[in-house]
């Protein structure tokens, strides 16, 4: 239990800030391209697995572009597989009609769809992991605000993240006190859980009152001041970055490049 919490905190703080040498492209451009990618990729009909596979290139190219290793991203994204499989498996049972055959093996539509559901899950998780890894959580929140997310939500996201560490630490000490008094079972009865979390809630609300005072003492009036470091300006190359990726992604969706390639091979 406490090991899990500590691992979590380590993992969290690793995601906090941007990858050092990524600064060539505006974070907002990367957010937009990620959104375009996800919309286009998820709009591929699930019976068209071969087309979907083309989109696996995006995370690989993005990772290479900023000098992040792709393999850890891939490994991390694998956690989604069991969940996707649990839902996707029904397609195998319900859609048993044949789709095509490779050699003598006949592939049913259900299997195609099952494959698609897994690939979609993997790719969407990879795109998300990459975005956060490249831009870092806190800068990402600030840039989401610049893209129109309400300031109140952006502030909330930053403050929530900040206090996860403080509260997890407090929770750890509370559960350690408990672990020293009882057998170290993995999960605790709900009544005991409630009294621990309830006590922590009381302390947390009292802490909020103190933070509120500390903020007021420094002139806070309910509205967060604008960031003091000048935000990055949008450059031409950001526009080009967004335009090129969008065109490439949409073209790959509309023009069926894989199919054309197959056709080309067949005619040759």
């Amino acid at each position: 239990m406490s090991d899990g919490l500590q691992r979590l905190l380590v993992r969290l703080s690793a995601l906090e800030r941007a990858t050092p040498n990524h600064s060539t492209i505006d974070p907002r451009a990367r957010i937009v391209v990620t959104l375009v990618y996800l919309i286009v990729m998820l709009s591929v009909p699930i019976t068209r697995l071969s087309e979907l596979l083309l989109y696996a290139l995006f995370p690989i190219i993005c990772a290479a572009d900023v000098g992040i290793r792709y393999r850890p991203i891939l490994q991390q994204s694998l956690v989604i597989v069991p969940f996707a499989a649990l839902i996707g498996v029904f397609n195998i049972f319900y859609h048993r009609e044949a789709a095509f055959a490779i050699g003598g093996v006949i592939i049913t539509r259900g299997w195609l769809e099952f494959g698609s559901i897994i690939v979609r899950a993997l790719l969407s998780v990879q795109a998300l992991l990459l975005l956060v890894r490249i831009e870092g959580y806190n800068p990402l929140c600030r840039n989401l605000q610049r893209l129109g997310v309400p300031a109140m939500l952006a502030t909330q996201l930053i403050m929530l993240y900040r206090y996860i560490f403080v509260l997890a630490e407090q929770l750890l000490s509370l559960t350690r006190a408990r672990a020293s008094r009882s057998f170290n079972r993995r999960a605790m009865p709900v009544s005991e859980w409630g009294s621990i979390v309830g006590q922590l809630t009381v302390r947390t609300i009292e802490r909020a009152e103190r933070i509120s005072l500390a903020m007021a003492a420094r002139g806070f009036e309910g509205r967060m001041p604008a960031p003091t470091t000048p935000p990055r300006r949008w450059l031409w190359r950001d526009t080009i970055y967004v335009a090129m990726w969008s065109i490439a992604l949409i073209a790959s969706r509309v023009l069926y490049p894989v199919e054309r390639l197959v056709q080309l091979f067949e005619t040759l």
Partner: protein
Amino acid sequence: MHMSDTLISPPVFIATSVIAAGLIFVATRRIGQPRADQLLDESTSAERRRRLVPLMGVMGALIFAAQMLNFTIPATGSSGHIVGGVLLAAVLGPWAGFLTLTSILVVQCLLFADGGLMTLGCNVLNMAALSCLVAYPLVFRPLVRNSNSTARWATASIATSIVALAMGALAVTIETELSGITALPYGRFLAFMLPIHLLIGLGEGLATAAVIATLRRYRPELLIDSTQSSSRSRTPFLAITAVVALLVASVAGAIASSRPDGLEWSIERTTQGTEIAESPSTLHQSADQIQTTTALMPDYEASMAGLVGVGATLVVIYGASLLIRRR
């Protein structure tokens, strides 16, 4: 019940994102504003805002941390973690609770890939909106109003959590079915989701009741929102709106999915008995065939119609609630 991107189609995630964004916008406007029935004494809205900003931040972090700590549900042997909607609403009020739970969902999405970026809208609606903006004002507030009995607070916590989770499960089912990615029919999916989420709702309710009991023992004044009576709050109207919209959508979803689409039906006919059709000639031919198949599938139309219906109902009832309030 975090939904993953893989099960959702673009029309559904775009529509749900738009609705969720609208609710978030309303929340940022409503937070810090006094409720219609609360007298405005010297505490101005800036003062309330000043106190709420850190309170929402730390309460979000608290729920996030508490989710790492599992509890066991007595007599069932299963364990779970808290979602926190009802608890947040009880401490912060519905709108601030909604925004706080939304922020937790965003953090889970960004840092743990728990629920996808595109399904964020769905998850915000299914978990944050239904628990804080619907179940809480419709079930919790009326049940505990002006009551001092511990049993009543516990009952309210459990009932509200179960209602919230059941509605959430229903919403997940609707959104998934409207997307048409899974082949699982509407009824079976719901039959699969509902019992699980009733159990999760029970656990959530017990956990919420336990925390609220502790709060009431030490600092009862912290549960301000639920101890002050609210005769003229606008939230219930919105809540009813959402319930009606959900019902409409579920009916629409059921109709859409009970009607087997033509092509699927014909394929079933042609492949009946043999199970495996005669092996299609070439890869490219079959790819073509599938392409036309998918183009003919009425999924998108059905889902768009359903969602437009939801949106229209929301707008109409919200407008009506504004009118009623103005009287």
